[in-house]
């Protein structure tokens, strides 16, 4: 692999965690020491812990076997695109704090101020990630729809409005107020400031 990488620089690596002879995780650590090339982990163990482990190590995505070509391509596309936009949007941050909430891209989870885990669907998570990467900026519905289409694994064709309302319900405080507002005729905006880590 090293020879191959030196010969022809790759844009992205799809790495199986369980490889004959060597552990994909060891390989990944070695790889990370040398480059920031995006990595998608592939594993036969579809368990949640593995997914978290892979993402915490710094993999860009995690795909459980079995998967199809379309899904793999979609994930690759998403990672590449994110790689490009992240550098300008979030500065590579993977942990965000806003309005008492804690969003971790690495662990793929949202927690309350008290540390309670709040489940989100895949689409909701991606939507929230988009908001926190561009806080206090209006994001057009059109752009949100485009971004949500990127995620093919979620076969939802529900409109962005439904997604936003679901997200609002989960983020709402005791008074029913959520930090996402509708900007009539344009789109939506996250109203609070975001701390990046």
């Amino acid at each position, binding site marked *: 692999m090293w020879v191959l990488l030196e010969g022809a620089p790759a844009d992205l690596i799809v790495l199986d965690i369980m490889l004959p002879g060597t552990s994909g995780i060891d390989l990944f650590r070695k790889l990370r020491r040398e480059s920031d090339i995006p990595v998608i982990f592939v594993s036969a163990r*579809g368990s949640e812990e593995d997914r978290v482990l892979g993402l915490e190590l710094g993999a860009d995505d995690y795909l459980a076997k*079995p998967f199809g070509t379309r899904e793999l391509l979609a994930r690759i596309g998403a990672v590449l695109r994110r790689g490009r936009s992240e550098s300008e949007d979030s500065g590579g941050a993977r942990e965000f704090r806003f309005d008492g909430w804690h969003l971790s891209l690495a662990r793929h989870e949202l927690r309350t101020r008290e540390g309670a885990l709040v489940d989100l*669907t895949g689409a909701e998570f991606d939507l929230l990630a988009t908001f926190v990467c561009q806080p206090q900026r209006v994001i057009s519905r059109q752009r949100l729809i485009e971004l949500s289409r990127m995620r093919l694994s979620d076969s939802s064709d529900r409109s962005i409005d439904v997604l936003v309302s679901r997200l609002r319900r989960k983020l709402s405080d005791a008074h029913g107020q959520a930090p996402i507002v509708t900007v009539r005729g344009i789109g939506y905006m996250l109203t609070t400031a975001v701390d990046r880590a």
Partner: protein
Amino acid sequence: MSALQQWGLSARIFATLALVLMLDFAVNAYLFEQANSFSIPAQEAKALGGELVVIERQMNQTPSPQRAGLAKRLGHGALQIDWLAQDQSPVSGIQLGNIEEQLLRAQPALAEARVQVLISPLRVTDGLTGTMMLADGSTLRFRSHTHSVWPLVIGHLINFLLPTTAFALLAWLLTYAALRPLRKLVRASLRVGTRRAQPIDVVGPAEVQLLIRAFNSMQLRIDALLDANTQTMLAIAHDLRTPLTRMRLRMDTMVIEDEDRQDLESDMAEIRDLLASLQSFVELESDEARREPVDLAAMAQTLVDSAEDAQEHGERASYHGPDRLVVYARPLALRRAIGNLVENALRYGGGARLSVSGTPFGVTITVEDDGPGIPPESMDKVLQPFVRLDYARARNTSGMGLGLAIVERAVQAEGGTLVLANRPSGGLRALIRLPQSCREPLSATFPYK
């Protein structure tokens, strides 16, 4: 101590018995001696002695044939008299030498009559029993019920019963101690297969030590079997995924009919689902995840939304409950439990109504559908792993029959209960109750079933 441990169970019980019998014998012999020193008040001794002298004299003056009748007449409430023509062996009992001497001292005339005073250990309520010999060698038997005999009787009763009771207690304690390792074994056997094997200390009688050794090795074998079973299932679930992935990737580049492709895709999806359910079933068993705060309401909404989004035929799933309800649980297990119930409701019940509510006693999670429910006779069966009802087979749905088994395991791991019931108006209601402790951060961890 180690020499004692070599003793067998039978030897121990025998030793206990022998010890107790010997002690009982020794103490009774001592008490027998003590009986000699029992006494009655001098006045009563004098009265009884006087009476006996009078009776002896009268009997001696009476010809033999009438003696029996006379004896009856001479007797009264406190003193019964019997006349026996032959010298029968004296009534068995403990001889009260002291009282005999008292009588002799009061009435020296009785010396000739060889008075014997006894108290029968078997018939203490008879009071003092005695015999005296008449001039012609026949025997007179008397039973005295003087008041002062009662303390004697009671004292004797206590003396007689106390050691026996004490020794019975001692025997019980010794036997109890000898059998204690057995009770330990019973408690340990209740835990076999539920957690890591905890070998029992090899102590106790030889037979019990053998049993404990055999049990310990059996426990290890069972654990090894369970482990192997888990590993096998996990290996199946994992190792089939790689070839399955290759098949899918290959299929994507193959030139085949669209219809074939769809069939193949759905078959592969089914295999994937089966493997996933097998994996989650096995993983729950070895789930050592920590309990952490989880927003149950958000979890429920997410499950409902994702399940509804994934429906191809437009079945509806809905959530009723608060916007936020934090519980302390293993999120993965809880998510699977509720997810499986919602999925079942959608699949067999045509729709799912999920509701969550906090009660003073904990948290209840209910999933209702409008399907056919579960036949009452199958209620127990559905919770067993790898059991699928005919209805599910007939519907040609995929699955291994692990869904509800997973739910039950997960709920029990949280210290909760799962109740399935057919609703009066039709459809199934699955009710999960989580205990109040699931709402407190520092609740005790529940032992895994």
